[in-house]
Structure formats: structure tokens, C-alpha cells
């Protein structure tokens, strides 16, 4: 099983966003791997290992499209346990979802993985488009917002569960396929790969990169490419005009009684 995991670096979502002249000011940003992509890496690692024996069975290739210093985020995925990395050079401003998807298609064509596993969205732009676009460009089956993945038919298919309004939906996809993951993919028993005993319970959440993993990651291969190498060209079709903060919410009020609440709702908020 070979899995391609595209990852994006994003400004640390825990830190406050600064806006200057209608643009995000990222000069002091601390960059991290997009949360959902980190979950995708974790899921890919779980799909390609025997967790009880601590052995690998398969290959996880991480790819990012971004500036030079995005290499740190690739290293961080290698440190978690991914086998190999591909770094396609590009400035963030020259990209949009479609260009990213086209570039990933070119990488897919070279790598021919059994599965492409991505985060359902990046927590900076929150567009939630790349996985779907990529599946369309590749003409591959897709399952989005995966909460669990089970390999089936000797690795020729996978069964993906997705949480939908009415309950849980199960989809069986022949491989290769494109799967995007949601938060629950990193819960203790969300991945079944036929190798790790089903009794195995993972710790909740993505694994930490161990110091050994970090030191080993130094020696793992990282391929540097340009979009031209991959035969991709074009400019973004989406343009950012202005970034503004949502209006600050007014302070809340504490009411003494239900009567007062009803009165305020009808007279002040005009909600009743």
C-alpha cells in the first residue's frame, strides 16, 4: 500500500491573526502543519503499519507545494514516520485550490499511489476544495470527511465512514481513490488495515514526533521540484481582494428571570 499525503503549512491557528492594509500580516507567523493534514498523515501511518509490532508495511509519501521554508513542515511529517517527501517550490500567493489540485495530479501521475489521503480542509483558507478537485481531475472515486477507514478486498478497496446529518454513511471505494479526513480519523480505533490487530487501541490524536523520529527524518529523502518540472503552469483564478475581521460581538447580558428574558427577547432583540 502506497499512500500520497498532500500537506499544507498554515499559520499557527492558536496565535492571533494580524491584519494590515486589508491583508493578513504573516511576517511574524509561526508555521505549522495544517491540523487536518496532520490527521491525514497519522491515518496514512496507521494504514501502513503493524502498530503492535511497531513495524512498517507500505509507504507514505508526503508532498507540499510551498516556499522554501515549508520544508520544515515536511520534515515534521517525516519525523512522525512518513517515508519520503516531495517539495514543489511555489510562493503561497501564486496558488489557489485549482492550481494545487493540478500540481497534485501531476505528482499523482508520477507516483501512482494506491490512495491519496488529505485533510478535509486547511484551517487558514478553509476552502475545502482540493480533495474534491483532485478526484475530479484524476477521475477517481472520492470520499470526503472520513471518520474511519477500513481496508477491504485485500487492499483493493476501502470502506470509509462519514458522519452526516442523518447518522453515519458508509462508502466502499475501489482503490486508487481520494479520501479526505475529518477529526475523528485520529480516534483510537478509526483505522482497520488488516495488519494491526483489531484489539489495538491508539492514543487519541496524531502521534508526537519522537526525538528519534526527528533525528531520523534528517536522513530521509526529500525531492525538490518546481511546478515547471511537473508541467504545471497558470496563475490563480481566485484573487484575494481584502481581508477583514468579523465585527466584534456585543457583550452578553445576564438576566434575573425567565420573564425578563422573554421581555428582552421580544422588546430589545425583537426575536419573538
Amino acid at each position, binding site marked *: 500500500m502506497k499512500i500520497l499525503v498532500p500537506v499544507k503549512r498554515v499559520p499557527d491557528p492558536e496565535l492571533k491573526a494580524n491584519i494590515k492594509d486589508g491583508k493578513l500580516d504573516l511576517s511574524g507567523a509561526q508555521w*505549522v502543519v495544517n491540523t487536518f493534514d496532520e490527521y491525514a498523515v497519522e491515518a496514512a501511518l496507521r494504514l501502513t503499519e503493524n502498530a503492535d509490532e511497531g513495524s512498517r508495511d507500505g509507504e507514505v509519501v508526503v508532498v507540499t507545494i510551498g516556499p522554501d521554508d515549508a*520544508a*520544515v513542515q515536511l*520534515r*515534521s511529517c517525516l*519525523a512522525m514516520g512518513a517515508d519520503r517527501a516531495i517539495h514543489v517550490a511555489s510562493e503561497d500567493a501564486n496558488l489557489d485550490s485549482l492550481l494545487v489540485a493540478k500540481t497534485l495530479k501531476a505528482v499523482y501521475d508520477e507516483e501512482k499511489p494506491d490512495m491519496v489521503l488529505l485533510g478535509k480542509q486547511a484551517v487558514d483558507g478553509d476552502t475545502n476544495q482540493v480533495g474534491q478537485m483532485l478526484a475530479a481531475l484524476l477521475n477517481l472515486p472520492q470520499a470526503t470527511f472520513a471518520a474511519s477507514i477500513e481496508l477491504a478486498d485485500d487492499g483493493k478497496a476501502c470502506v470509509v465512514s462519514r458522519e452526516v446529518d442523518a447518522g453515519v454513511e458508509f462508502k466502499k471505494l475501489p482503490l486508487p481513490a481520494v479520501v479526505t479526513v475529518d477529526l475523528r480519523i485520529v480516534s483510537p480505533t478509526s483505522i482497520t488495515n488488516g495488519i494491526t490487530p483489531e484489539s489495538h487501541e491508539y492514543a487519541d*490524536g496524531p502521534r*508526537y*514526533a*519522537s*526525538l*528519534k523520529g*526527528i*533525528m531520523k*527524518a*534528517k536522513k530521509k529523502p526529500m525531492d525538490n521540484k518546481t511546478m515547471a518540472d511537473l508541467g504545471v503552469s497558470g496563475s490563480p483564478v481566485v484573487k484575494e481582494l481584502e481581508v477583514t475581521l468579523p465585527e466584534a460581538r456585543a457583550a452578553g447580558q445576564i438576566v434575573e428571570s425567565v420573564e425578563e428574558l422573554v421581555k428582552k427577547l421580544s422588546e430589545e432583540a425583537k426575536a419573538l
Partner: protein
Amino acid sequence: MDFSLNDEQELIRQTARDFAQRELAPKAAARDLSGEFPVAELKALAELGLMGVNVPEAFGGAEAGAMAFSVVMQELAKADASVAVTVSVTNMVAELISAFGTEEQKKKHVSKLTSGEAVCGAFALSEPQAGSDPAAMKTTATKVDGGWKLKGNKQWISHGDKAGVIVVWALTNKDAGTRGISAFLVEGGAPGLAVISAEHKMGLRGSTTVQLGFDDVFVGEDAMLGTEGMGFRLAMAALDGGRIGISSQALGVAAAALEVSLAYANEREQFGQPIIRHQAIANKLADMATKLEASKLLTERAAWMKDQKIPFSKEASMAKVFTTEKACEICDEAIQIHGGNGYTQDFPLERFYRDVRVTRIYEGTSEIQRIVIARQLIKEASN
């Protein structure tokens, strides 16, 4: 001159930070009250490689260097200074045995520490009458058939009751001064080894500090670390590195105190505006941040020198005395900024203040650091 961390150091920082914030910080206040020793957390830290940051790979270490160790200590101490001291001493012991132990000793003890099979390692130098002046120790090691018998008491030994391996210093020759001191590796639970009492401490309550009694504890010939009479030199070498650890611990606590204070000063309003708008408070924060930065530079430079294999004893002492004193000032001002809230357990400041205080005492008091620095200066001047 490059002040940035390299990629590996940055990733190590992230691992330490994420673990500390997710797994340590939420329960630090509870451990401070209960005194519970965090066995599961320490094992998890070992699995991540944080018990052998600067230890050779062959013995389960990460071989990531002293700078990485400093960064790890800072991040852990931001969340829980008690866990940090256990990690610091264990790393120091693992590094000491890696540097001076025989192949057998390394295989036997270092791997246990780095893997978490032993929950921690301890460093037993101080005695009731021998603190700043460890050469005044009375514990003896007497040659017997096949090995040595240790007799005496060790005082204030961090987690000496939990350690899988303890480095114990003892006199092998009472008439040879510091050259009569040797170091031995004693396993936790060895017959004749007893925990005599546990201290009730002002801070670091999530870590134990105990008096150990050695009543004719037998160790084999192969338990001596280094050669006979070399013990004092080993202790001083270990403490040079240890001081970078303690300095980093103080840095972490101070950084946490500053972070909390900044947030509080932005939110707390008096006289119609956030208190950070009152210049007296803003100036405090400016001073705290400046002291913190200066301390960080001193500490990280000492770590960098150690990584470059440049003698760093004076710089480690400078880093320790400066950082630990500034860290105490920072934590004190942090309480001031928080007013009455700072004095209560609803906020972490009073814990920070209690925890950070010991950094001016252990692994050589501030007064002793100044002696070390001054001696170096005199030596340099006479060259």
C-alpha cells in the same frame, strides 16, 4: 551569528511544547496540591526520547545536543517545573554514565533510563553537612571481597525514592581530599538502601526530594563510575551541564509567568482601562521581557558552547546565576501584576513563584556560581 534554532531543534521544541501543553499543563496544579508523582507522564516522555536528549543513539538516546536539551527543558518547565526537574536530573545522569561509563554500565543503565524502563535516574551528592561543600561528605565506600560497601546518608536527593539507578558519591580514601571521592552506580531497591524521609517543600511538589540511607549497601567492582578518586571531577563535569538544564528550567517558568501576565494585564481593567495602559505595569512587563531575553541568550549560548565542545563551565555558571535570579524577579513581578489574584491558587503565579525559587539553590547556589565565575576570571587574568 545565527540565533535561530535549526530544523531539528525546532521540531524537538514543537514535540516538547505539544506534549507539555497537552499532557502536563492540565494537571500541573493538581499535582502541586496532591504531590502525586507523574509516573505515566515520565514514561511517555522517555518513549518520545526526552530522557536521553544528548545521549548516544547506541544507548537509546536522540543525540540531539545540548541546545535541544535546553529547549526541551524550557518547554517542559513552562507547563510543570516538577516534571522538568525529574527530566533534567535523569538526562544529566544518563549523559554522565554515557560519557564515563564502561560499555557494560552504559548497556545496563543508560538504556533503562532512555527507554523509560527505569522511570528516572538520581544524583546523590549532597549530604546533611555537605551541600555547597560536597567535599565535606562522610559517606564511605569500603573495599570488600568482590566490590564495595557504601555507608552514609545522602540529603535532598531529587526523586531518589523513584529512581532505577542512582549515582552515589562516597569517600574511597579519607585522606586524599577531593581525590579520595569516587562515584558508584547503585540500583534502586538495592539491599541496605532506605528512604529515610521525604521533604515537605515550598515548591516542586510534583517531584519528591528524599534523604537516602546507605547501610552497608554492597555493589560489585563493576559499579564504580570512572576510576577510583575521579568522582569529584565527574560530579563537577555533570553539574556544568546540569546548570544549563536548571537555567533552562527557570527560563521556562519565567516565560510562562510573563505570558500569563501579559494576557492578564491586557484584560484586567482598573481606573477605566486595561492595567497594561498604566505605565507602571507596562514598564514591569518591559523589564520582565528584557530580563527573560537576556537570560535566554546566556543560557542558549552556554548550550551552544557545549555543543561546539568549547569549555563552557564559566558560561554555564553565568547563565545559571543570572537566569535563576531574573526568573525569581519575573515571577515576583508577575504576582504583583495579578494583584490579589496572583496570591491565590486560582491562578498559577503563586505556584510559579514557589517552584522557581529553588533554582537559585540546587545544582550550586547563586553564591557558589559566583565563586566559580570569579575563580575563572582570576585564572584568565593570570594567564
